[in-house]
Each structure stands twice: as structure tokens, then as C-alpha cells.
């Protein structure tokens, strides 16, 4: 109950009883209460003018890194006897050292500062205000204020370093890179033979072929290596990622960050499409700056639901035709048609699919029913993945109990050969 209100009730009761019984001693009981109230009024804060500043030692950190937040509250008004300061920390951040709350006395023109360190999971955190409750020592007059501050923190997903990821899109860019371009020229890998032309290095002469055809001299041609367009698509649909209070989405983000870094390091042009509650499109680009942009957007990505994107949606106009697409999704059987259609249109598709069956099974009891259900869902998934592979889509089925580096090394470093019968 409100303290002044409680005191006033008590005073009124005592006055009423005192006057009703004509007992001055009962009236006298109200004296300390009245004095108490008067003392509260006498020392109540007059004009509160507090200003808060917030300094973060880093605004962009990797998951697990600590950030020191320094807060300074200055009093530009009269002296304040008791100020309770509390910083609002968004959910997802945890304090590792120091304290968010302070009870202090701030003289006129004085200031108080303190620091604490936080650590958080991937995401964007706006640190916009501090709560200040100003009062006097008796705690009767209290002023609750929100002091605005500037501050934001991006906790970026961890970036795993992969040695190489082998992709082979049908179309490459003109710039040199590491993607085999299916065209002869200077390179490393043998591509074809042609008749010797002026300017060819003598070291390129294929002596074995030349010996078989004495009238001609043949030289080796090598496969050109060029940069390519890579479109990363991150599936943030609630229905595919969330299982009760657990989410497999973080695994997709981890893989997306790792592959974006690897593709960019190889000189490719990389863009990112995220869709969950809404679509977020990171325009394609090259280099470290693009890597930062992608990590920034990945830090903001949260799974969600939208009426428009219940099904897998890939806006084709965003991706150059016959370019490389990489989809990060746990997949559901309904996704097959859309993926197959993309493949038919000439896109080279790589699907990194964190396994939702084993992920969900970790969190549920091993009952007979659950084991049977798991088997059925596992069969459905196996069939779907087999169909996708049959359509010429490279699928990496990632059991999330294993490290992504292991999976990537095993399945992504080798050149992928499309099964026979698939038109490339």
C-alpha cells in the first residue's frame, strides 16, 4: 500500500476516535505520524534534473564475449538524498560482474558512475533507458523517472572457419576466384585439349596427344576459376524451427555465418535472404564489409510466423539465374516442390539442413510411442532428402549433436557430383 496514504488513514482514524471520545491523549498519538509526514514533505526532492550517459566498450561483439557498460548519472538540479538507479537489461543479456542497481546520494552538480559487464546470446539489444527513483530518506515522496540513454549492442553469431566449400554454379562472374567456371583458360585443373596456338606456353604442350597425331601439336587447357554469385537463404519459419521451447534456428544461423565467411573469403559475391516474420534482404556484395553486413543482419534474425510465408518462399528475381543458392533450413516435406522448381530453373542448390528429428528427440522422453513416432518422422525425412538428392540438389543432413566443422569438412570440401540422369 502507498505509504503516505496508509499514514493518512491512520491519522484520520486517530483524529476521528480522539474527537469522538474527547480523548486528547488519543489525538496526541497522531503527532508522530504528522511529524513524519511533514518531514517527508520538508525533504522531498524539488526539481529533479538527472542526465544519464552510457558508454559501451564495444557495440559489436561475438557470442560469448563480454562487454563493459559504463553508466554515468549527473545531477543538474538540487541535492538528492536517496536515488535508486536501475538499468534495464533486455532479455538475452546476463550480467557477469558488477551490478545493475545502485542506491546513492547525489549532491547538487555531482554525478555517480558505475560499470558492469554483460554477456549475451546472439541478437540486437537496445539499451535505451535507466530507471531512477528519487526520494528522501523516509521514502514518502518518490519520483519515478526514466532517463534516456544512447546505447545498442549487437551480439553477432560465432563464425566458424571452414577451409573451403566446393560449389559449382552454372554461371560465374568475370572476376577470377576459386569456382571452376567450365571454361578453358588459365587455371590449375585440367579441362581440355586444343591445337597449339601462338602464345601458348611450351609447358602446356600435351606431348602424349601430339605423339599420336604427328601433323598437329596439342596443348592443355585448364579450367578457369572465377568468382560466383552465391545467394544464402535462411529459413526462419516458426513451424520449421521451433519445437516447444527449444529452437533449432541457432544451428542454421551458425552454418549461415560460417558459409558466408567462407564464400566471401573466396572472392564471391554473397547476398543473404532471411524470411520468418518478414523478409530481410542483404544486397549481394564482396569482401569483409559485406561479411560484417551479413553478420549484422544475422544477429537480428529471429524465427517468426507470417501468413504470407507459411511455405518456403524464394523470390527468384533477387538471385541471378543459374547462380548458386544455399538454403539453411530444417526442411519440411512441403518444401520439396519449391526446391525442385528452383533446380529446374537452373539454380545450383545446396541445402544445409539441421536435423530436426534428432534435435527434437533429445528433448522428449524415450517412451515406446515416442520411439515409434521418431521412426516414422525419420523415414519421412529420409524419403524427402532422397527425393531432393534425386533432383540434383546437394543436401547436407546435419545431426546437430555433431560439430558443424566436422560435417562441413566431410560433406562440403569435396566436389559434388550430380547423380547421373540429372541435366546440369
Amino acid at each position, binding site marked *: *500500500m*502507498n*505509504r*503516505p*496514504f*496508509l*499514514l*493518512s488513514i*491512520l*491519522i*484520520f*482514524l*486517530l*483524529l476521528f*476516535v*480522539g*474527537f469522538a*471520545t*474527547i*480523548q*486528547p*491523549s*488519543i*489525538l*496526541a*498519538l497522531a*503527532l*508522530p*505520524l*504528522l*511529524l*513524519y*509526514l*511533514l*518531514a*517527508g*514533505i520538508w*525533504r*522531498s*526532492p524539488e526539481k529533479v534534473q538527472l542526465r544519464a550517459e552510457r558508454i559501451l566498450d564495444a557495440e559489436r561483439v561475438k557470442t560469448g564475449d563480454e562487454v563493459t557498460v559504463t553508466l554515468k548519472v549527473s545531477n543538474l538540479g538540487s541535492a538528492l*538524498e*536517496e536515488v*535508486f538507479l*536501475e538499468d534495464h537489461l533486455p532479455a538475452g543479456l546476463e550480467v557477469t560482474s*558488477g*551490478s545493475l*542497481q*545502485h*542506491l*546513492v*546520494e547525489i549532491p547538487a552538480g555531482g554525478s555517480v558512475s*558505475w560499470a558492469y559487464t554483460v554477456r549475451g546470446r546472439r541478437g540486437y539489444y537496445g539499451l535505451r533507458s535507466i530507471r531512477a527513483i528519487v526520494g528522501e*530518506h*523516509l*521514502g*514518502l*515522496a*518518490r*519520483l*519515478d523517472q526514466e532517463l534516456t540513454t544512447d546505447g545498442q549492442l549487437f551480439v553477432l553469431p560465432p563464425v566458424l572457419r571452414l577451409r573451403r566449400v566446393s560449389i559449382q554454379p552454372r554461371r560465374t562472374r568475370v572476376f577470377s576466384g576459386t569456382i571452376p567456371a567450365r571454361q578453358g583458360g588459365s587455371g590449375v585443373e585440367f579441362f581440355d585439349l586444343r591445337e597449339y596456338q601462338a602464345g601458348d606456353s611450351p609447358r602446356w604442350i600435351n606431348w602424349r596427344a601430339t605423339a599420336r597425331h604427328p601433323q598437329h601439336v596439342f596443348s592443355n587447357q585448364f579450367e578457369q576459376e572465377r568468382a560466383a554469385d552465391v545467394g544464402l537463404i535462411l529459413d526462419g519459419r516458426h513451424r520449421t524451427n521451433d519445437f516447444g521451447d527449444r529452437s533449432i534456428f541457432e544451428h542454421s544461423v551458425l552454418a549461415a555465418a560460417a558459409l558466408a565467411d567462407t564464400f566471401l573469403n573466396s572472392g564471391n559475391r554473397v547476398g543473404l535472404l532471411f524470411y520468418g516474420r518478414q523478409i530481410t534482404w542483404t544486397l549481394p556484395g564482396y569482401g569483409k564489409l559485406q561479411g560484417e553486413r551479413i553478420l549484422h543482419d544475422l544477429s537480428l534474425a529471429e524465427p517468426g510466423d507470417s501468413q504470407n510465408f507459411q511455405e518456403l518462399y524464394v523470390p527468384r528475381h533477387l538471385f541471378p539465374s543459374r547462380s548458386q543458392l544455399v538454403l539453411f533450413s530444417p526442411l519440411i516435406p512441403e518444401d520439396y516442390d519449391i526446391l525442385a522448381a528452383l533446380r529446374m530453373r537452373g539454380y545450383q542448390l545446396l541445402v544445409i539442413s539441421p536435423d530436426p528429428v534428432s534435435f527434437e528427440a533429445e528433448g522428449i522422453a524415450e517412451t515406446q510411442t515416442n520411439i515409434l513416432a521418431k521412426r516414422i518422422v525419420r523415414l519421412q525425412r529420409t524419403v524427402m532428402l532422397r527425393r531432393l538428392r534425386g533432383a540434383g540438389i546437394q543436401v547436407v543432413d546435419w545431426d546437430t549433436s555433431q560439430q558443424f566443422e566436422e560435417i562441413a569438412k566431410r560433406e562440403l570440401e569435396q566436389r559434388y557430383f550430380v547423380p547421373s540422369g540429372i541435366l546440369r
Partner: protein
Amino acid sequence: MTRYLRFLLPLLSICLLTAGCFRIGSVWFVVGLLLFGWIWIVGLIFHWSWIPPLALFIAFGTAALGLYLDPSRGFRSNFSIGPYSLLGTSDPGHSVVFLLPAVLCALFAWDLAEFHIRLQKASPEDDLTRMEQRHLLRLAGLAITASALWLAALTQHFNPSFEWVVILMLCSVWGIRRMVNWLLGQES
């Protein structure tokens, strides 16, 4: 200091109330008071938030009842200058010596319970000793002022007419209402 006073003041309050009400003559009343004192202390140990306000009401109510039922009227006629009390008609009994300090202790116990909650929110790095000292100093000032006023009320007298009593009552109600409204407005 506050942590000891939090328990000491309720104990003192209950002891003084018991001593003040002893003259009423009801054993059950005294037993009830002691039982409540025990609940009060247990409530403070277990941080029951409803205990301090309830204790404040009970302490003041008990003190008012004790003063009203005290059979030993004539405190002022024995110890004071005038034969009449503040508002003229009644002379308090000897229990006033115990009951007035008892309510003061109850008020301070209620205040310290709230202050203790505020202190618990502070960080270990804050300078709480200084804050505690200033708080206790203010309570001491209040205690001295209240005692002085009580002493004046018990020793001095004036005999106003009924009209003045009514005007005084209305003024006090209006004044307190204004005061509380101001404090509530400050908070909002």
C-alpha cells in the same frame, strides 16, 4: 545498525504496549499482544511484506485502546502545571508514559522495515553506512520533536470553546488531506 534496530524496535514497542495495557486488567489482552509481537518478529525474519503496516495499525490501535481504558486517570494532576488536558476535558492515565513511546517505536519499526527493503536493492559497492546514519539521525530528530510536543501537550493546557474545536478539527483534516495529496502527486 538498521538490521538490529529492525528487530529491537518491535520488541521494545511490544514490551511498552504490554506494560501500558497491563493496567486494563485483562490477561488475554496482554497474551494477545505478546502473541502478536511474536508474529511480528517472525514476519520480519521471513520478510512478510504485510506485517509492518499491520503492526503499525495494531500498535496505534492498541495504544488508543489502552489510553481510553486506562483506569488511572489524573496523570497531569500529579505531574503537570494545569489540571486540564490539551482539549480540555480528559486527563490521561499513567499508561501514557509507556504507550506514547510504544507507538513511536512501532512507527520507526515500520519505517526501518521499508528502509531495509530499499537497502537490499543496493549494490554491495554503495556507501550504505552513510545513508543509514543519516536516516537514523532523521528518525532521532523526529523522536526528539515528537517527545517535546507530547511533553508540551501533557503539561500545557488551554480551554477552547466547542466551535474552536470543530474549526480546529476541520482545519486539521483539510491540512492532512492537502499534505497527503501533495505527497501522492509527487510520487505520480
